[in-house]
């Protein structure tokens, strides 16, 4: 019962946050200098056609009405009309999101498959050269952003060794380089967190008890330690979604991947506010949704955490 309350409370907070963000996102578009119609028609457009276009996009209405229209459409799945393409945004994004999701999932898989073993190895051999190597690798990985790593990887593997194409050409394995670039920082964070988390857990009394009753070291680590040590790692993955959303903007632009990030970046100089607002709010929804899921997963894994956010 308390757990259900906890989940409900978290969901309510997520919805409230999302609503507030929608207001902020909308007002930023409204506040921005140089309206989109003026940008579309140029400086010397005649007032009549400016007025006509404003009416077409509903920009002649008072702001609260504009907001109400926008958000009620959003809830029903109508994301508005792009100023730049004069097309509904929903179908354009639907066409583009699978590749972005695939990129993010590949990067996430890379982060877990590389980061977790690295951190575990460091924790089990704490203080040894294995630990030092893993820790230094992880700190280096944290420090190198995707848009530094990707060009270096492309220069080496595409232009020098010619193993992969320089830009995305439609095959799934072409995503390898961008996914590694995008996943390296999360991988390093996962490694650091796994190490710290396992070190703390392995020092607990119940681990000694498990060992004392004759359980093998391997089984102790896998069954007793892993469950508790995995919780902080989940947090890192949750917050990494934010990093990967931002990173996909850069990586897609660099590597010519026709996803959400690519279209968002090109929408900014074009002042295509409906597109920018739609993408921002969707990205925020994904980020909040993932972190909500992480919160709930926490509650399943550790009953002590089934409480309200710390006051």
């Amino acid at each position, binding site marked *: 019962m308390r757990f259900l309350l906890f989940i409900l409370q978290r969901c309510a*907070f*997520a919805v409230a*946050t999302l609503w*507030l*963000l929608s207001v902020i*996102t909308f007002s*930023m*578009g409204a*506040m*921005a*200098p140089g309206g989109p119609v003026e940008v579309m028609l140029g400086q010397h457009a005649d007032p009549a056609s400016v007025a006509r276009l404003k009416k077409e996009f509903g920009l002649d209405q008072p702001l609260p009405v504009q907001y109400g229209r926008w958000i009620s459409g959003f809830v029903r799945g109508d994301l508005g009309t792009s100023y730049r393409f004069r097309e509904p945004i929903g179908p354009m994004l639907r066409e583009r999101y699978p590749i972005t999701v695939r990129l993010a999932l590949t990067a996430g898989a890379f982060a877990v498959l590389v980061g977790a073993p690295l951190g575990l190895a460091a924790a089990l051999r*704490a*203080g040894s050269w294995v630990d030092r190597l893993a820790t*230094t690798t992880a*700190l*280096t990985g*944290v*420090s*190198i*952003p995707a*848009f*530094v*790593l990707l*060009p*270096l990887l*492309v*220069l080496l593997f595409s*232009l020098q060794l010619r193993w992969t194409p*320089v830009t995305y050409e439609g095959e799934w394995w072409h995503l390898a380089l961008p996914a590694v670039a995008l996943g390296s920082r999360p991988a390093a964070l996962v490694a650091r967190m796994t190490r*710290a988390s396992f*070190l703390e857990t392995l020092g607990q009394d119940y681990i000694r008890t498990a060992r004392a009753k004759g359980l093998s070291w391997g089984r102790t680590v896998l069954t007793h330690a892993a469950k508790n040590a995995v919780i902080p790692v989940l947090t890192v993955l949750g917050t990494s*979604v*934010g*990093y990967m*959303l*931002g*990173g996909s*903007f*850069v990586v897609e*632009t*660099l590597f010519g991947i026709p996803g959400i990030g690519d279209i968002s*970046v090109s929408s*900014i*100089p074009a002042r295509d506010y409906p597109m*920018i607002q739609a993408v*921002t709010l969707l*990205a*925020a929804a994904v*980020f*909040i949704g993932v*972190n909500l899921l992480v919160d709930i997963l926490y509650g399943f894994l550790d009953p002590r955490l089934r409480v309200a*956010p710390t*006051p």
Partner: protein
Amino acid sequence: MASSIPVSASLPRLRRLPAALARPSTALAALFLAALVVTALFAPLLAPHRYDAQNPGNRLQPPSRVHPLGTDGVGRDVLSRLIYGARVSLTIAVAVEAVELLFGLTLGMLAGLRRGWLDNAVMRVTDLMFAFPDILLAILITGTLGKSLFNVFVALALVGWPAMVRLVRSRTLTLGAEEFVLSARAMGASDGRIMLRHLLPNLLGPVVVATTVGMGTIVLAEATLSFLGLGIQEPFPSWGSMINTGWQHRRSDPMLTVYPAVCLAATIMAFNFLGDGLRDWLDPRSRHA
């Protein structure tokens, strides 16, 4: 009376500063950053050319005596632009961190000490900020305000302060229950005096670490914005925008991308390694062995 316990307690640490730099990675990071600061300060003296001196007849030159790292797509000296790029990166990082420290320390200590409505407001606002991916917010802000050095600073400062406030607040909560704070209060010390004389010296450790690591984050964020065309505008150099323009010549002149990329990665790495070293030095408990 004037010398309270926390001040004197933090002094022996200062004497052990050389010990902190004994670790090679930390010393190397500190040395690199010192060199970078000198480079940024004396950029006009060190740069062989002006950062915006174009020479269309001299495009994409290989390294030479005149242009040690060659020239870019419009014939500007790459080394000079890298040197001025350090100035841009560090200026933004220092300015943003200064604002974060000001906000973080005052708001965080006040919220942690007074609790009540102020604390509630701070926590709810920071909750909201954490619910939004940082870089998206910065993109949204610079996209709205327009592109300029000042707006990059505004965007990054707006995005960055919550983490510092939360850190200071949580430390203040812990310290506020300690006896030396309670006794100071019992002797009638004002909130201001408690904050300045008792809390601040004890907060410095984690705050210094967070600031160091935070500088790296800001350098990265500025570079990302500039890379996307939302940050520093031409002809001013930023490592981020240099990566972007260099990338257009990736087939003919890959080093145009490599130079700024390496500068950027090295700088962020240096801040992280220095922060890590400082953390272990200030808090021996974090040295798991």
